[in-house]
């Protein structure tokens, strides 16, 4: 790897026409030719399902894998708030350029210009496609599509379906996928965990899976492999991700040579239901859209134990409105989260634990009526009441930041291909579009842009240069060896028979990552984490206990196989955060902040993507992709 240089392969030319011009230069295959190729897609959330459907429409034979029972269970389904698109329906001056700029700025100038512009450009096609599929977006009384605002922007460009936008978009992509299953162009492998990627002559040619029903380890070969495997927030143990969301597919790819970019760029979402006790298994997000009508505040007095209703207006600190008069409650996520931590650390937190702030709808209910609030956020309010046993129409919600999304992921070039030829990574699983902080309503946008509109072209171009169905068979040495490796790992884990339940080790790991590589980081803490994580790894391999057999459904074994990779990833996250001696977006290094406690970026030394190579024998190896900004001016983000 010594002489290896990262090349984004972004084409030259005018930003506005780059993607369209580039598309014309890509190789095409007719449906008859495409029919000779086999494509493996792992994960069937927004990115995976939309890519599978579209590539199948173009004639490719798709083998789609998921550890879920059905594609409709993927975690994209839980996205609440909405999806951005530069349609400018509200005539408030929105444009592709503006969405591009907001996203680059929101990401604190740590993302690639060309990718982000393409994303903004494709946003409009996504809405068209989804509407054509029958996605029931919210509409105005006149019958046209409705929009709302989200954090970090001053226009209304977010399309939504109540608080269930992710569900409706996923069901749309799932229906397109189902249509192709019906047409026999997609074969869906339900309840299969991908445990390794197989390369032949340096190119990705297949995967190893475990059938979760009978434990069978199987090899599957293909002409190209696409990872649409989501993010790794569960490295923190507690996050808003679904229980099974994991990094395994990406980590296995990383160990086979795919570089992992910006692993420490994780998003802490400001509005989640706070942790209540030690049994907590996961955290629940309350959509950012709530900040359109909810006001964030804490008591001015420290350790104020009065009920919210007993604290008079003048003794409340609406700190976001105070510090950021221009954006108020709608500042980006990283800013809102850090400020919540700050007031709680200062003793102004509320609730039993003192680790929460209020999100108050009183004013909006008074001004717009309870019906209006119910129509807009009804299901979120119900969910809140169900979990906390408190009525948010009557008393303010209590919220606190929680890990929600990971901007980091596999390094990909402009074609969304990783550093392993023939291995693509799309949606949250890659690093490409959100820099150091993702703006609200743009994860759904990226998943669908990658799946519907980017990969179909770039994967086709890659395949057009590959001979189809070279006859790589699962009996070949590379596959046989990979199966053996996987079986050995499983045998090892089953044989430990220690006295720790997988979750106990995971909780311990989560605490280290949250404390040291969470909302605020510093050199000492990160070094500390690099020291302590290997000890957790040792504990796992010595003391973990898996009951039952690996030859039938074994949910503890599934968890253990995921945790072993999370532990290794955690160490890389700490290395990455330690390397980046600056603060940017969600990466807040306490040593680097302004007098007003804002993130202090260092563009002269850190204007790069940190892409890490796996090193079996020690410290990971860093490769830098320098970021070039030809169309935007680097500025200090200000939301004041």
């Amino acid at each position, binding site marked *: 790897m010594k002489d290896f240089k990262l090349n984004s392969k972004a084409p030259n030319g005018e930003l506005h026409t780059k993607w369209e011009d580039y598309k014309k230069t890509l190789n095409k295959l007719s449906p008859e030719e495409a029919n000779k190729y086999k494509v493996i897609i792992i994960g069937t959330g927004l990115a995976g399902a939309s890519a599978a*459907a*579209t590539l199948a*429409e173009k004639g490719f034979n798709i083998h789609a894998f998921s550890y879920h*029972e*059905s594609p*409709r*269970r993927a*975690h994209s*389904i839980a996205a609440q708030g909405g999806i951005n698109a530069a*349609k400018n329906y509200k005539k408030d001056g929105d444009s592709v350029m503006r969405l591009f700029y907001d996203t680059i700025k929101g990401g604190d100038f740590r993302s690639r210009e060309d990718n982000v512009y393409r994303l903004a450009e494709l946003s409009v096609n996504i*809405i*068209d*496609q989804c*509407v*054509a*599929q*029958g996605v*029931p*977006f*919210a*509409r105005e*009384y006149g*019958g*046209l*599509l409705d929009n709302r605002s989200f954090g970090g922007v001053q226009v209304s460009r977010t399309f939504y*379906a*109540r608080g*269930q936008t992710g*569900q*409706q978009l996923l*069901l749309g992509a799932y*229906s*397109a996928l*189902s*249509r192709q*299953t*019906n047409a026999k162009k997609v074969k869906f492998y*339900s309840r299969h965990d991908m445990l390794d990627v197989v390369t032949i002559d340096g190119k990705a040619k297949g995967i190893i899976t475990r059938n979760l029903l009978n434990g069978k380890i199987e090899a599957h070969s293909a002409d190209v492999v696409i990872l649409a495997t989501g993010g790794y927030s569960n490295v923190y143990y507690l996050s808003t991700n*679904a*229980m*099974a969301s994991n990094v395994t597919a990406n980590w296995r790819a990383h160990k086979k040579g795919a570089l992992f970019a910006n692993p420490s760029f994780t998003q802490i979402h400001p509005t989640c239901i706070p942790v209540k*006790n030690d*049994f907590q*298994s*996961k955290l*629940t997000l309350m959509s950012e859209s709530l900040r359109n009508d909810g006001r964030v505040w804490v008591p001015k007095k420290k350790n104020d134990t009065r009920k919210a209703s007993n604290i008079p207006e003048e003794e409340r600190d609406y700190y976001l409105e105070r510090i950021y008069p221009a954006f108020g409650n709608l500042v980006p996520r990283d800013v809102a989260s850090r400020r919540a931590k700050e007031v709680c650390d200062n003793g102004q937190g509320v609730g039993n634990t003192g680790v929460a702030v209020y999100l108050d709808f009183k004013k909006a209910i008074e001004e717009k009526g309870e019906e209006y609030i119910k129509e807009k956020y009804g299901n979120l309010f119900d969910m809140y009441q*169900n*979990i906390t*046993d408190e009525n948010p129409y009557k008393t303010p919600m209590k919220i606190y930041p929680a890990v929600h999304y990971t901007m980091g992921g596999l390094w990909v070039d402009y074609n969304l291909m990783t550093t392993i030829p023939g291995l693509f990574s799309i949606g949250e699983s890659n690093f490409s579009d959100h820099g150091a902080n993702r703006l609200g309503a743009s994860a759904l946008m990226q998943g669908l842009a990658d799946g*519907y*509109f980017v990969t179909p072209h770039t994967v086709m171009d890659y395949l057009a240069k590959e001979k189809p169905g070279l006859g790589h068979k699962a009996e070949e040495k590379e596959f046989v060896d990979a199966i053996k490796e996987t079986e050995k790992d499983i045998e090892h884990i089953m044989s430990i028979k220690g*006295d720790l339940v997988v*979750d*106990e080790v995971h909780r311990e790991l989560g605490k280290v990552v949250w404390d040291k590589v969470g909302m605020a980081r510093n050199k000492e803490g990160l070094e500390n984490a690099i020291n302590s994580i290997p000890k957790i790894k040792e504990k796992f391999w010595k003391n973990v206990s898996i*009951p*039952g057999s690996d030859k*039938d*459904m074994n*949910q*503890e074994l599934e968890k253990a196989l995921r945790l072993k990779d999370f532990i290794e990833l955690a160490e890389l996250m700490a290395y990455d955060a330690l390397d980046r001696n600056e603060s940017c977006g969600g990466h807040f290094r306490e040593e680097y902040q302004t007098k007003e406690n804002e993130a202090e970026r260092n563009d002269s030394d850190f204007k790069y993507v940190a892409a890490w190579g796996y090193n079996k024998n020690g410290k990971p190896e860093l490769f830098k992709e320098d970021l070039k900004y030809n169309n935007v001016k680097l500025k200090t983000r200000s939301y004041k």
Partner: protein
Amino acid sequence: MNINLKIWRQKSNTNEGKLHDYRLENVDPNISFLEMLDILNNKLIKEQQDPVAFDHDCREGICGSCGFMINGRPHGPQKATTVCQLHMRSFNDEDDILLEPFRAKSFGVIKDLSVDRQSFDRIISSAGFVSVDTGEASEANKISIDKNNADEAFLSAACIGCGACVAACKNSSAMLFTSAKVSHLALLPQGQKEKTERVNKMVATMDAEGFGACTNTGACSAECPKEIGQTNIARLNREFVKAQVSNLFEKK
């Protein structure tokens, strides 16, 4: 609080299952039902026993993975709530709580409380979509949709495919699930072109999968965690009759 659990344990589809008793003491009423099961499972693992298998993922009531019978009711006693959103405060100290998998011919037991609901996917893939390739769509706002219709379509589309409706029905009918998708698309202009074919194919697949007949008892809607309404079934029936009539004319 203390609780007495009776849980259906079944190693696999080919093994026979039976109920086992478990007692949990000092359960915090503020934890969720699945967190209670996590605690039980941790205890079982520590005692070298096989933990209880159950499906779950988002724990936010939206993915549709979770679902089993609690004291004879799908998703338990609380209205409009999935198991994962149910909390122990819905139960009393020293309650007996019976947990069984969803029972239906078309949902085979995989292990313990986990069942196979892929028959639902096959119903959707038979025709539960609008045939539009990526990139073929026209400008979104060219289609204007009456807000009431759009809202109505959304309510039908909110189905999470958990299977509670089938488990609640004495005939194990999948009518509510199927009709929700038929309705969602029948209410929108995008769904008009294929509506005859859609209802015919989806009903045929539903029957072929072995789901029972609908006798309009309304048990499905009453137990649905997303409150998918009975009106969907009426709408499917209307669409189905219209499709039969148009079939007749076509044959002539």
